[in-house]
Each structure stands twice: as C-alpha cells, then as structure tokens.
C-alpha cells in the first residue's frame, strides 16, 4: 500500500506533539513549571536557524510580524499555565486535551472581534467543546 508523503509528515507531527505532551508532565514531576518553561524554550530555540532559512520576513508587513510575535509571547504564557496545571497535580490525560480546546475561545470571539459568522458545523464544535470541558472537569 502506497501512502502519500504528507501522511508520513502528519504522522511525525502527531507523534512529536503527542510525546511532547507526555514530556510536559514528566518535566513538572522533577522541577517547577517556571524552570520547565525556560528549558522548553531553550529546546524550542535550537531549531530557530532551520525555521529562519528560506523564510525572509521582509515580505510581510510590520503589523503582521507584530501579531506573530505577540502570538509567540501568548503561546509561551499559555505553555506556562499548562505546565503549572500539570505541576499542581493535573493529569496529562485530562489537562492536554482540555487545553487543546483553545479554538473554542477563537470561535466565541471571532464574531465580535473579527466580525466573522459562525457556521453550523462550528456551532456543533462549540457545543461539543463546552460539553467536553464540563465532562473532563468532573
């Protein structure tokens, strides 16, 4: 059976992100969330040169670059909160899926901030996400 190249890249992305979730829990078993975040950023930064090559930023506008930078800052703050939740006894099997429901916030805010309309499918997604948050918190 021949599988398309993109399948293997997605499988790799799935395994990397899935194992990373486990490592987040393991790291907070041995150190504080703050130290775990700092070392995480160090590890994350190792691949910066590979991310930079072939991706000149000059072609993007200043506001776009600013928003991406702010996105990086918020991502780090979110990771800190996630690690703190794990450090304070949260199970990886609950905390990681719960935090991956962050698009719920985007879906709820987009109509007001970006003036986007919500589709029926997204409405179903919002209901499922709210239900998931309630059930996972029990």
């Amino acid at each position, binding site marked *: 059976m021949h599988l398309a190249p993109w399948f293997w890249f997605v499988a790799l*992305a*799935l*395994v*990397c992100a899935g194992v*990373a979730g486990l490592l987040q829990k393991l790291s907070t078993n041995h150190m504080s969330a703050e130290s775990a975040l700092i*070392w995480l950023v160090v590890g994350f930064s190792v691949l910066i040169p590979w991310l930079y090559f072939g991706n000149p*930023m000059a072609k993007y506008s200043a506001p776009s670059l600013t928003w991406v930078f702010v996105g990086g800052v918020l991502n780090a703050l979110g990771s800190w909160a996630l690690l703190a939740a794990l450090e304070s006894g949260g199970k*990886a099997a609950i905390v990681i899926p719960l935090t991956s429901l962050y698009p719920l916030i985007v879906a709820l805010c987009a109509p007001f901030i970006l003036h986007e309309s919500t589709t029926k499918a997204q409405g179903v997604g919002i209901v499922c996400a709210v239900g998931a948050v*309630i059930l996972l918190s029990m």
Partner: protein
Amino acid sequence: MQFLFTVGTLPVALAILAARHFRLERNIFGVTYSLSNGVLSAAGMMALFAAYRSGGNTSVITAAAALYPMITVALAVVLLHERVTRIQVAGLVLAAVAIVIFSL
C-alpha cells in the same frame, strides 16, 4: 513567520528567569524532559509545515494533526498509569469531535 513566533517565546522565558533572580533548577531529568519537549514541539511544527507543502489536502492535514492530544492520553494511561473515569472518556470523545470540527 514561524521563526518570529519562536522568538516571541524568548521574552517570557527571560522575564521568568529574571523574576527567579537567574536561578534555574538543573535536575537532570527535568532538564532532559523539558529540552526534549521543546525540540519535539518545534520538530512537530516543522513536520506539519512539510505536510502542507507536500501537496496534501489542508483540511485533512489540519484535522488529523489536531488529534495529537489523543496520543498523549494513550501514553499517559499506558506509561504513567493515569486513570480516566468513564465520564472523562466521554469528555475525551467530545473533545476529539470538537477538535476535528474546529480544524476543518
């Protein structure tokens, strides 16, 4: 853009480091797990971008990749022996459905 996103995480790490008076825990297990976590997270993102560039359907790729928490759940149950109640399993199923819908 991914480059700048990564750079955006540095000020937060530096601010936390300064707040801790530049004292950093160096437990070998904690450092190893955290560093591996950072490298794997970045590698996962790069693999995802490679998938987008390799000509696959964007919706399918995004939806499939968004299911990564289920890998974590399986690993946590098997390796960390975490227990999940039936109600929480129902929550996980709903979360998977929501993640896929939001990804499309």
